[in-house]
């Protein structure tokens, strides 16, 4: 999806705003949203690609005017509602209650089993690497061209490196394909490659000297040159 989230090379956004001594969470709701993501995605209510795509489909104006954890809240809500786990009206009604009484506590519930499994998730992760029987189509050093595609759904092929020539720098294992997995089309694992692009190829005369960009791309994003 050619969305505003696909930011590589956009100009006019201004300076980088570095916050000194930045806390991990700036307030209680950032931590609550982060934890809610862990507990819901961690229990398989939606997958990481669905999570990311839920942010991408926010309206561009909304995306650019909202905070990072608001993006997360948007996509968690959207995914849980789509899966039928949460009801939109129920959520809105409860939100109104908390708006009227901001000090009202969240009901507490202990779940030692979930605590244990989330702790394991944090420590061990949830790899999307998959075994495939096929051999990788490309080898280190192969010249490739990225495809000129503009899918309406989720993809991890950034616009700034579409229809560009590069060289395979590293061959990784096969991983779940986000383009399929974000839309309930299965995992469709494919090999991933680190592809090296010369800045001149990507940015033309506007390139900085002595710069290369490496982008990690799934096999179907690439064509042999």
């Amino acid at each position, binding site marked *: 999806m050619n969305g505003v*989230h696909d*930011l*590589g*090379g956009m*100009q006019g*956004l201004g*300076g*980088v705003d570095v916050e000194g001594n930045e806390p*991990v*969470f700036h*307030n209680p709701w950032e*931590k*609550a949203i*982060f*934890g*809610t993501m862990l507990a*819901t995605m*961690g*229990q398989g209510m939606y997958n990481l690609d669905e999570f*990311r795509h839920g942010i991408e489909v926010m309206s561009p104006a*909304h995306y650019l*005017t*909202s905070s*990072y954890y*608001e993006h997360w809240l948007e996509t968690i809500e959207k995914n849980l509602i789509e899966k039928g786990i949460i009801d939109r009206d129920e*959520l*809105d009604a*409860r939100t*109104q209650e*908390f*708006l009227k009484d901001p000090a*009202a506590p*969240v009901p*507490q*519930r*202990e*779940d030692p089993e*979930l*605590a244990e499994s*989330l702790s394991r998730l*944090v*420590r*061990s*992760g949830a*790899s999307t*690497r998959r075994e495939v029987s096929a051999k990788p189509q490309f080898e280190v050093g192969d010249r490739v061209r990225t495809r000129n595609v503009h899918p309406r759904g989720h993809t991890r092929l*950034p616009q*700034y490196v579409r229809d560009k020539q590069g060289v395979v720098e590293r061959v*990784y294992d096969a*991983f779940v394909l986000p383009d399929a997995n974000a839309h309930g089309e299965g995992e469709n694992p494919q090999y991933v490659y680190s592809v090296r692009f010369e800045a001149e190829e*990507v*940015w033309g005369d506007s390139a*900085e000297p*002595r*710069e*290369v*960009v*490496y*982008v*990690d791309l799934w096999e179907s994003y690439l064509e042999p040159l």
Partner: protein
Amino acid sequence: MSDSYPASEAEISARAKALESLLVEKGLIGTDAIDKAAGAYESDIGPMVGAKVVARAWSDPGFKEQLLEDASAACARLDVGGMQGEHMVAVENSEQVHNVVVCTLCSCYPWPVLGLPPNWYKYPQYRSRTVMEPRKVLKEEFGLDVDESVDIRVWDSSAEIRYLVLPERPEGTEGMSEEELASLVTRDSMIGVGKPRTPEG
């Protein structure tokens, strides 16, 4: 609820609480589990973990070799790993090469070694500019002057590989312990937007 924006902090807070409450009431999540898991990133998962990995690589040539060959395996030897760092790659800075990491599409970041990313890493300015004008961004935004003779390699974390920059070991650190070395390693130096501290401070 989400039709008007920017949303107020009060609204976000209420929505977050409402969501959590409903999930608790449905018996789908536990508040203790959430607090504990999220809390890990406030306590023991953060840049100090990556600093230990870097200090070990500076001290132990065999470990460094393994780190550059298979960072996940090397980190596992130090009991380091986990979510959003299942497949890590370390890229080495040198006198000839400076590496810098970005995620243009969202905010991918190696959590097990650096914790959660700072806001600037997640917001549009850094994400848009770093792939196009890294030297300018490093100089103007982070005060890091990368000499014209040095190649800049930008790593856009677009898949499930997570990149950690192995900074150059500062001069004057001969004979330092791993612990002393680790205290010199900053978060920014492992993203590639800064250099490690020097022993003088």
